[in-house]
């Protein structure tokens, strides 16, 4: 009873504050069809299962490979080695093996299925407000290139916050935009194809637990398989013993997994992300006074903070219902395209920088199993740039005063419908939401070009990245 009341009160609180839509008391008046859940119109490139409970990246082939490898190796171990070892040595061995195996599986699934810390995209009003602020900062109508960065001082270090053109927000520190998933992720570490998801603020500890426990499991299996072979070879000879055990798979994975665990242990103890380490953001090579402002100073605190700190909730509310009658101010300004030409210059330069970094990384770091998101990002950026072209000539102005309801309801439609269906419903970058505006027709061009071109190039790059890594 108590729970039910607090639940309904909670529902009341949320619906009251956010929109003018019906509270539970007003449901008899509703005559619309069942509401859609927010995951069904999620703008990123993610896949959802179990009605929004499970969230993964688009390409999940390698994840299934990971599962198969783990299950097969452990299956072989439990079938062929455990009976012998349980009898000859102690039955504790299969028990420990079983516990480790379950832990590995649990953490893998948790890493793969949870929201890594995706930042929801800005609402049209927020985006308009930001545009206005940037416009004011530039001193009025600009043919001048906007800086699109903000500088913040954090614990004595100057950190640049970049503006994300896709999500239309200034990214918080340590956040980054994953080009494979097309989302900004908080405390972005890397996009891991092996777990089929990004690794970010909300699932980094599960990822670390996964690779750590997997290291223990592979070392465990490897050690006991060797023991089994040695014990058997006393009786029947070395080669027959070798035939009966899954040594080979273990041998290669031990070194790569243990190496990866070691690398992430180093990252955790210095409170850095893979992204920051690759870019050398806090390395002393950049400058004498360069240090990591997020580090707590000692290794123990850094580890505790990363692994035992509070777990923030998901910001994207996948299973919530779409409220389509939220009051909105004005059609979003299309201020971005005012700076279309210069935008291309800026992001082009940034992308080149990233390209160099990532190429260096791939050549230098043989052990790290990450996909090169940077490469994918460049092509996505370039594809988007070419689309900015058609719209630069369109006239743009200040945000208009509040419009009447029919045009307001238009804005929520992109949320309710699938991507790229009609020009009016394109919510994606360069991110214009026309509603009865003359820009309608130009978006067919965008809708047509953006999806296939960028997807192919991204797919190519992720595959290329994997091929490079698998040759290690």
């Amino acid at each position, binding site marked *: 009873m108590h729970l039910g009341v607090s639940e309904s009160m909670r529902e*009341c609180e949320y619906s009251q*504050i956010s929109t003018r839509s019906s509270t539970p008391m007003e449901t008899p008046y509703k005559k619309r069809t069942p509401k859609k859940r927010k995951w069904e119109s999620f703008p990123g490139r993610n896949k959802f299962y179990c009605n929004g409970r499970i969230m993964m990246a688009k390409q999940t082939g390698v994840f299934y490979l990971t599962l198969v490898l783990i299950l097969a190796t452990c299956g072989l171990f439990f079938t062929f080695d455990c009976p012998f070892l349980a009898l000859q040595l102690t039955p504790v061995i299969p028990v420990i093996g079983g516990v480790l195996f379950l832990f590995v599986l*649990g953490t893998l699934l948790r890493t793969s299925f949870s929201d890594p810390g995706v930042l*929801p995209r800005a609402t049209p009003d927020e985006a308009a407000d930001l545009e206005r602020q940037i416009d004011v900062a530039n001193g009025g109508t600009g043919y001048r290139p906007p800086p699109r960065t903000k500088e*913040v*001082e954090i614990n004595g270090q100057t950190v640049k916050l970049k503006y994300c053109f896709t999500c239309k927000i200034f990214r918080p520190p*340590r956040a980054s935009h994953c080009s494979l998933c097309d989302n900004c992720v908080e405390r972005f570490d890397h996009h891991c194809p092996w777990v089929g998801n990004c690794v970010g603020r909300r699932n980094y500890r599960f990822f670390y637990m996964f690779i750590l426990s997997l290291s223990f499991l592979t070392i465990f299996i490897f050690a006991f398989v060797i023991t089994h072979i040695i014990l058997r070879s006393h009786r029947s000879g070395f080669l027959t013993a070798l035939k009966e055990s899954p040594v080979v798979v273990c041998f290669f994975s031990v070194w790569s997994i243990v190496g990866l665990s070691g690398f992430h242990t180093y990252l955790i103890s210095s409170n850095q992300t893979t992204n920051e380490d690759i870019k050398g953001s806090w390395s002393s090579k950049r400058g004498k006074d360069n240090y990591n402002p997020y580090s707590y100073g000692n290794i123990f605190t850094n580890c505790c903070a990363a*692994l*035992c700190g509070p777990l923030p909730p998901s910001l994207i509310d996948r299973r919530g219902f779409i409220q389509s009658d939220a009051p909105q101010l004005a059609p979003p300004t299309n201020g971005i395209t005012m700076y279309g030409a210069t935008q291309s210059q800026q992001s082009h330069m940034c992308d080149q920088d990233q390209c160099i970094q990532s190429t260096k990384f791939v050549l230098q770091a043989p052990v790290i199993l990450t996909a090169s998101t940077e490469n994918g990002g460049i092509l996505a950026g370039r594809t988007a740039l070419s689309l900015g072209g058609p719209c630069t000539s369109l006239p743009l102005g200040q945000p208009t005063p509040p419009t009447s309801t029919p045009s307001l309801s238009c804005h929520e439609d992109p949320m309710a419908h699938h991507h790229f269906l009609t020009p009016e419903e394109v919510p994606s970058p360069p991110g214009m939401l026309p509603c009865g505006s003359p820009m309608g027709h130009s978006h067919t061009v965008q809708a047509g070009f953006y999806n296939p071109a960028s997807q192919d190039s991204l797919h190519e790059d992720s595959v290329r990245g994997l091929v490079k890594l698998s040759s290690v």
Partner: protein
Amino acid sequence: MSKTGSCSKRLSDRSRLFHNLQELRHSASLANKVFVQRDYSEGTTCKFQTKFPTELETRIERSLFEDTVKTLNNYYAEAEKIGGQSYLEGCLACATAYLIFLCMETRYEKVLKKIAKYIQEQNEKIYAPRGLLITDPIERGMRVIEISIYEDRGSSGSSSSSSSVSGSTTR
């Protein structure tokens, strides 16, 4: 607003207030939205800027606004605090392979509920009578505190019959 023990009485009080806030939205039209951005000077912890937006100068006293933001910042700091309790929760969760979160809610979620209640209270007592409405930052991805400014359409009487201050004072 009466605070009796019985839940049903409280619900009916709330429903009356809902109607008043709904009426605020119906009788008033949305004039503008102000966004209070995040303050990243202390790192990635959740904190909002206490700078008073100029659009609110005629609407609400600076001290009230700053109090609200400071209280919210304190709540978020409490949620993200790294100390004994969070370590215990983290270790326990790890030991149970994170299955414990199926039955228990995290400390962060508990604090978020407190925040939601606080914001609702603030809206009812302080902001709605002045024709303003605060949106919970969690609904905006913790990026901004969105404050909606409503302009009275002329029918000012109905909007705040049970609130202490009449809506017409905001004009």
